[in-house]
């Protein structure tokens, strides 16, 4: 009996548990998945929680209910991986050996990386919305906030879901309009990038939307520190931006277990082959989702596409066949733009998001890079798809793992 161990039962790890449970001969393979948490959070919901669009119960379920019966869920804290002897050491002293290791430990915020961010005012006037607590505390703050300068801020790239901060700014515009207080709120979007997004054509469309919604953009801002006392953020060039309410996306890092295991780069992301998802250092270690350093977006859709390709590669690895270097960086993201509308973008390593139709070339029904109500309905429907299809590893009809070029206006 051989053993596959999956580290992390988040989006990517759970999908892999379900895929492998279907695909591997269970007489030959035991599959274990390790996580210390009890809850599985629907992370895209963190965007909606602050604006009272979702309730906490919409976005949290237990980890157990998504792990198939044939897979053993091991609860506990991981101390480190010892790749030289194929061991995972648990904090309580247990040792688990593996033949194949799949790392899906994700990424999380590290506000301690920016001096002054984690001060007295953390979750009082300075908030993140990348954690459940942050999003919930921010909701409570917004319910009674009387207005002023709202600064939505990205610390440094890469971050999970690179469009989420923009969506937050758009939804804030919508939210304050609905509360009849838009004139009391000045919204500024502060980014280390040179524009609204990382890809030129989408940036053009999004810069335009920011203008329409009277959201000011401050670009090329590399934060050095937060001055909570005087309520301002300061960059390395000495530029200062004042706020009354700061909503920041702190530095994102891979899990500390990666650092303890000596497997990561300076942000604890694991050097990984971007086509095959095999780790560069160890042939029997594979990396999926936000934990890797591949140049794709850190997003659930990316993990979903990766999972289909990684499952194939695990089977090839087991049968001593060459791995497919097939992953193309495919990402597919809805971008909420407020007032019940959304954009949709579909892109990969080599093609930036462009206009077109999705998923049926020339038909749609979803339009790429254009605001529509249909796209917004798609985003809301996605929560159901996530809980009921995505985590279970069910293929989503008509949406292929690699990006489709037809129906796009390159």
């Amino acid at each position: 009996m051989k053993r596959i161990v999956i580290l992390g039962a988040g989006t990517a790890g759970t999908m892999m548990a379900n895929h492998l449970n279907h695909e591997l001969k269970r007489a030959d393979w035991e599959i274990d998945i390790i996580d210390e948490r009890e809850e599985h959070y629907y992370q895209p919901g963190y965007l909606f929680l602050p604006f009272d669009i979702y309730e906490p119960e919409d976005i949290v379920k237990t980890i157990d209910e998504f792990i198939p019966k044939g897979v053993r869920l091991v609860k506990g804290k991981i101390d480190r991986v010892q790749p030289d002897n194929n061991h995972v050491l648990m904090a309580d002293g247990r040792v688990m050996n593996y033949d194949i290791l799949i790392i899906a430990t994700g990424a999380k915020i590290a506000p301690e990386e920016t001096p002054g961010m984690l001060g007295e005012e953390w979750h009082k006037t300075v908030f993140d919305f990348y954690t459940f607590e942050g999003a919930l505390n921010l909701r409570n703050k917004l319910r009674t906030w009387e207005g002023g300068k709202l600064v939505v801020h990205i610390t440094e790239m890469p971050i999970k879901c690179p469009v989420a901060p923009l969506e937050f700014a758009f939804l804030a515009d919508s939210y304050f309009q609905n509360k009849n207080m838009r004139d009391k709120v000045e919204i500024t979007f502060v980014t280390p990038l040179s524009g609204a997004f990382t890809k030129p054509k989408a940036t053009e469309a999004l810069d335009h939307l920011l203008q329409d919604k009277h959201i000011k953009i401050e670009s090329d801002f590399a934060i050095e520190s937060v001055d909570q006392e005087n309520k301002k953020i300061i960059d390395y060039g000495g530029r200062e931006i004042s706020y009354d309410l700061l909503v920041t996306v702190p530095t994102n890092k891979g899990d500390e277990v990666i650092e303890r295991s000596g497997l990561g780069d300076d942000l604890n992301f694991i050097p990984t082959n971007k086509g095959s998802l095999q780790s560069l250092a160890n042939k029997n270690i594979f990396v999926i989702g936000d934990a890797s350093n591949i140049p794709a977006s850190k997003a659930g859709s990316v993990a979903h596409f990766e999972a289909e390709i990684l499952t194939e590669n695990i089977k090839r690895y087991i049968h001593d066949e060459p791995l497919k270097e097939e992953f193309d960086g495919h990402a597919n993201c809805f971008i909420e733009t407020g007032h019940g509308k959304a954009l949709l973008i579909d892109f990969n390593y080599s093609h930036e998001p462009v206009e077109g139709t999705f998923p049926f070339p020339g038909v749609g029904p979803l339009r790429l890079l254009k605001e529509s109500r249909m796209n917004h309905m798609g985003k809301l429907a996605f929560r159901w798809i996530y809980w009921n299809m995505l985590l279970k590893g069910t293929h989503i009809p008509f949406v292929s793992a690699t990006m489709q070029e037809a129906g796009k206006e390159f």
Partner: protein
Amino acid sequence: MEKMIAGKTIAVNEEGYLTDFSQWDKAVAEEIAKENNVELTPRHWEVISYLQGEHKNQVALSIRKIGKSNVVDIKEFYALFPNGPLKISTKIAGIPKPASCL
């Protein structure tokens, strides 16, 4: 695209980054620096040569990585190449704009 820089025809992309590093020389760097209001000092050249070395070794450049390089700290990097030091310094160095951002 092509552009006349320092009396030579140089291949550049839409944003003005060199697409063929073999066409780069110090005169080209001086002129791109001038366009970006940067006057090159010996310190600038040290940073430029570090960036070119990293690029040659296929290291993805980021502000964070440069801050930990022991060549220059982030504060000085900003002082040398004000307003977006990474994109300005790489343009002067004749290497691609870092795609560290996704």
